């Protein structure tokens, strides 16, 4: 394929880079892969090199955690160069079979997991204390529109997050509504895998879908959906929140009563897409602080320095070649060192990767990983 001269330079402001190296210096995956994002920014200036750069396997190691962007003194986003290289591969159809399968499933089934679109709301059965989950018809009004997340609706391990969200909404008397069977992938992972065209498709489809309701705000379960709707959709006018922001409000307004005690030391792991990408650090901590019996601890690497769990950036579908210890295991080791009993998260990908790491380290008896929604559910 042909690249017009200077395309990457213009798109990513590559000439603004002063090659200071703060990006690579903070990049968490350098602990286990040869990825050198500073080098990619430098090399991508030369259009003739782009093809060869796109063939390098390290471009798939990036988790898009945003550390490089947060650290860049020039306000650049180095990881976007890597996504641009992925886009070159995706457009040619030259991507890993696992990425191909996820993308084809996104288009055919509206989710990356190969699950039938018709089964999108099966998770709504059997929620404790809830007869029926409210699903909005087109044109209907509600205060809050919920976008559940493909992982929450299909992965049995993540369904409890969605179910507890419903219990919280009901308990707090929120005027909420779910989308139902027409709910589709937000497009975040399509874009992370390099499929710009497919992302634009979801941008268009979902913007129209959300617009068909009369709602005041859109609330998501996953920080990835949150980030994409809030920052990447081109024409979405509805305000977007992550559930931690809504729940913090509800607690502050005294609409949600948390009565049961969870007597444990809890350490909160900042999801990259909530924290580093969108600077939402306080609300999850506030919520945890309001749960009776919880003692909170902080990781040494917390907030802007949170260690990525390697669930984002399409990593759920594309493995690195590296055999070095996964970052999630390092994170669990950090939690163990702190003496924490619960690692709290607010993201389905963090939950899956950290729990996997917990099992790999054989610590299931000593600790558990739980989403804040699960802790809320236990405390209601």
């Amino acid at each position, binding site marked *: 394929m042909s690249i017009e001269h200077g395309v990457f330079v213009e798109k990513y402001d590559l000439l603004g880079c002063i090659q200071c190296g703060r990006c690579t210096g903070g990049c968490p995956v350098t602990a286990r892969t040869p990825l050198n994002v500073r080098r990619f920014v430098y090399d991508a200036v030369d259009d003739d090199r782009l093809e060869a750069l796109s063939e390098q396997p390290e471009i798939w190691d990036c988790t898009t955690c945003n550390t490089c962007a947060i650290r860049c003194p020039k306000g650049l986003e180095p990881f976007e160069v890597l996504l641009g290289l992925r886009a070159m591969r995706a457009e040619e159809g030259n991507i890993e079979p*696992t990425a191909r*399968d996820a993308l084809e499933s996104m288009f055919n089934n509206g989710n990356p*997991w*190969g699950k039938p679109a018709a089964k999108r709301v099966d998770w709504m059965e059997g929620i404790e204390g809830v007869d029926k989950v409210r699903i909005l018809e087109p044109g209907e009004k509600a205060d809050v529109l919920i976008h559940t997340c493909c992982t929450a609706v299909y992965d049995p391990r993540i369904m409890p997050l969605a179910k507890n969200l419903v219990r919280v909404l009901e308990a707090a008397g929120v005027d909420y509504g779910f989308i139902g069977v027409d709910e589709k992938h937000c497009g975040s992972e399509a874009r992370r895998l390099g499929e710009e065209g497919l992302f634009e498709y979801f941008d268009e489809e979902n913007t129209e879908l959300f617009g068909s309701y009369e709602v005041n705000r859109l609330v998501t379960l996953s920080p990835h959906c949150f980030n994409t709707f809030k920052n990447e959709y081109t024409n979405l006018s509805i305000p977007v929140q992550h559930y931690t922001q809504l729940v913090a409000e509800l607690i502050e307004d005294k609409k949600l009563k948390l009565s049961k005690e969870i007597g444990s030391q809890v350490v909160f792991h900042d999801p990259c897409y909530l924290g580093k990408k969108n600077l939402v650090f306080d609300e999850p901590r506030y919520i945890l602080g309001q749960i009776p019996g919880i003692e909170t601890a902080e990781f040494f690497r917390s907030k802007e320095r949170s260690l990525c769990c390697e669930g984002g950036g399409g990593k759920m579908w594309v493995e690195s070649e590296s055999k070095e210890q996964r970052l999630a295991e390092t994170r669990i080791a950090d939690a163990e060192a702190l003496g924490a009993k619960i690692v709290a998260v607010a993201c389905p990908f963090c939950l899956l990767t950290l729990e996997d790491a917990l*099992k*790999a380290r054989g610590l299931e008896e000593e600790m558990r990983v739980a989403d804040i929604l699960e802790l809320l559910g236990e405390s209601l």
Partner: protein
Amino acid sequence: MSDIFVLAEHRQGELREVTLELLTLAGELGGNVVAVLLGSGVDDFATKIAGYADKVMVVDDPMFANFNAMAYQAALVELIKKDKPGLVLVGNTSQGVDLVGSLAVELEVPFTTDAVAVSMEGDKPVVTRQYYGGKINGTINFKDADTYVVGVREAAIPAGEGGKSGEVTKVDNPVTAEITARKFLEYVEAAIGDVDITQSTLLVSIGRGIREDKNMPMIEELAGLMGADISGSRAVVDAGWLPTDRQVGISGKTVKPKLYLALGISGAFQHVTGMKGSDLIVAVNKDPDAPIFQYADFGIVNDLLKVVPALIDKLKEIKG
């Protein structure tokens, strides 16, 4: 009822079991069971088959030393035109699939494939087939004809004990011209060591329940006995007990074997996505709540380190 032709299937000096299954079926349907054996130097087969047929028609010719769909078709067309059987049964195998449609069209008779059940309504076969991956069944209605050709799925009908004593007749090869448009060259075995688990028919798959590398030899022995390949979850690949190309799951390979034996695998969603297309899933796990049991056809709640040695013994016993 008139004759029922059953095409015998053999390869590399072995008579395939499907032959006896179809002969058993033909016997159950009534009518005169005529086994049709095309081969070169296949007297042993003829003797074995005679126990399941009323007549064994043998065409012994070097042309049939190895399977060639065109040669088979040319012979069968002549034999069928001559004898006019009411029903022709062929195994729905790599041989049968290569043959049934073209044979039936050349004869201008109705046919269907992959029958899982066959019965007769007068002179007409009633065939049951599976649709949508076995989620529903369907019944086939044929246009009236004097002969029907039906491809029957392997292992759909159990082979009986035989109990017949068919007359073995050698027939001249009705195919006079050499078949040139298609020529058999050779058989090539799958390369050893180069396993592509996405193509495996049988998989023994291991998870964290394996506990240690030193438990691998029993898994290898089990897989060897079964003729199965070994695959695993991401956890065992991370631990270095299996190479990356053996990983089953959303970030690994998608497999669709006839048998997926999941040992010590919990059944996390990301793993199951890679093996949900398996025909038969058997799970062994200590934890009765392991999600794998939601997807398995058969389950054993027990420590795989105890079940595997017992299974090895049982398989040795079966194989005699």
